[in-house]
């Protein structure tokens, strides 16, 4: 583990601070314009906004699945935007991610998918031989009990239903023992009832462990129900940043209305 340095200008309660983040996939056509936000150190922060407004790009800039064009992403005294090589991989180990389409390795078993959350800590030879520390395997069994998939441990991921897959996806992210969890539309591919169950699981697992969550979601009622903080985005800009209670119809019209749908 790298030595943890003290947080800099960001307040001790912030899990993450983004300053002046800009992303252009094509030159002169920014998807994110000068985003500056602070993610509270506890609870779920929901990022709401229409499809194509850059929510997914924003969340992927944090763990650098997407390269930011400009700006700073401050996390535990590190600027994630400048990290490279081993330092970047070590930062990624500390950040879990849950995906819209679950992104499980289909041909691996549920147990192998869970343990893949530890791949940042296991040597390739041991990973290949499936030799993981007993502690990790114990945690994986406990998590499987929690998400109710113990009986599926040795089944391949492609045998599971959507809701079951997302449970595995969440368990895999928790296996990293992350200090921050990114969730990119984790319920968008699921039915309404399963969506609520998945959100309850996500909230329960992260709350108990004190893991702050950044949650991309376009479903406003779900965001209101589970988030302690809401960031509203439209056209690649932040148009709302505050408590869910403060979010009114004027804001929602600004976020979802007008021509932003077409972007």
């Amino acid at each position, binding site marked *: 583990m790298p030595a943890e340095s003290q947080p800099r200008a960001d307040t001790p309660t912030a899990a993450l601070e983004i300053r002046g983040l800009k992303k252009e996939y094509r030159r002169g056509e920014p998807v994110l314009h000068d985003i500056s936000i602070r993610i509270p150190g506890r609870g779920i922060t929901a990022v709401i906004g229409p499809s194509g407004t850059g929510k997914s790009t924003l969340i992927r800039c944090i763990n650098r699945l997407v390269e930011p064009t400009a700006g700073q992403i401050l996390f535990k005294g590190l600027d994630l935007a400048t990290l490279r090589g081993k330092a970047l991989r070590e930062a990624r180990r500390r950040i879990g991610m849950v995906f819209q389409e679950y992104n499980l*390795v289909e041909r691996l078993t549920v147990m192998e998918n869970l343990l893949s959350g530890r791949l940042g800590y296991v040597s390739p030879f041991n990973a290949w031989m499936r030799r993981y520390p007993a502690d990790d395997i114990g945690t994986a069994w406990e998590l499987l009990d929690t998400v109710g998939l113990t009986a599926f441990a040795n089944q391949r991921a492609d045998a599971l239903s959507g809701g079951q897959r997302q449970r595995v996806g969440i368990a895999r992210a928790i296996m*990293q023992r992350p200090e921050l969890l990114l969730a990119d539309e984790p319920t968008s591919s699921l039915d309404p009832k399963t969506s609520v169950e998945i959100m309850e699981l996500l909230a329960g697992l992260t709350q108990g462990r004190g893991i702050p969550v950044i949650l991309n979601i376009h479903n406003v009622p779900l965001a209101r129900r589970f988030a302690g903080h809401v960031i509203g985005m439209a056209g690649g800009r932040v148009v709302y940043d505050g408590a869910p209670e403060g979010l009114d119809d004027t804001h929602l019209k600004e976020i979802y209305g007008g021509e932003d749908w077409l972007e």
Partner: protein
Amino acid sequence: MNAAVTARPPAFVPNWPARIAWIALALYAGYATSILDVSWARFVTGVDNGIRFVGRMLPPETEASKMTLMLRGIYETLEIAVLSSALGIMLSLPIGLLAARNLMPPWLTWPTRLLIALCRSFHQVIIAILFVKAVGFGALAGILALTVASIGFIAKLFAEAIEEISAKQLEAIRATGAPFMNVILYGVLPQVLTRFVGFATYQFDSNIRNSTMVGIVGAGGIGGTMFAAFQKFDYDYLLTILLAIIALIMVSESLQNWVKKVYQ
């Protein structure tokens, strides 16, 4: 008739370039047949010769010394096939990986693709002639020739299989902070393993057939014995050898099915 309906464009647009290409192909096939003096009369004499040839093959030779000679050839053929397949498969894994454009930078994929193309350029028999010149007569030349041919085939298909994998699964493994080798082991390999096993068993099957061929140019195996039988008009012995090769291929076929079942 409704005016709005008649104004619509046709639902299915004819593909003229494809039609022209088919017509051109049919015309060329007719032209080539006329040039090459392919005629029914020649075909009939050919069938006649064929029947006489088969007649001279029967019954197959079973004399003990010749059987021993044949078995030795078959064993050598099998050795060439197994060793060249093993070597070719082992080398194809890293080479195919280096050629995959979704994982590797262009300065690496480009020369690797050139190497694979080079391995595929010539027929195994031509490569075998080169190796016979280089390392002399015998099985070693055959093994090397078929190894090169295997790389040309498996590495290319393996690279293509890697390029078709789901980027989502890869992204998830990358997001855990896994080092590159672990991304390959968990993000790439599970997605391509069954296809790779398919290519490898197919190549082993080809190598058994090809290793009966390279003997003709002196690169070891049953091919040399078979070619000698041909030239000495020893057709009943030829039949024995052909039957042995068929048996070998059938054994390999059932082995393939078993391997594929193990890997689903």
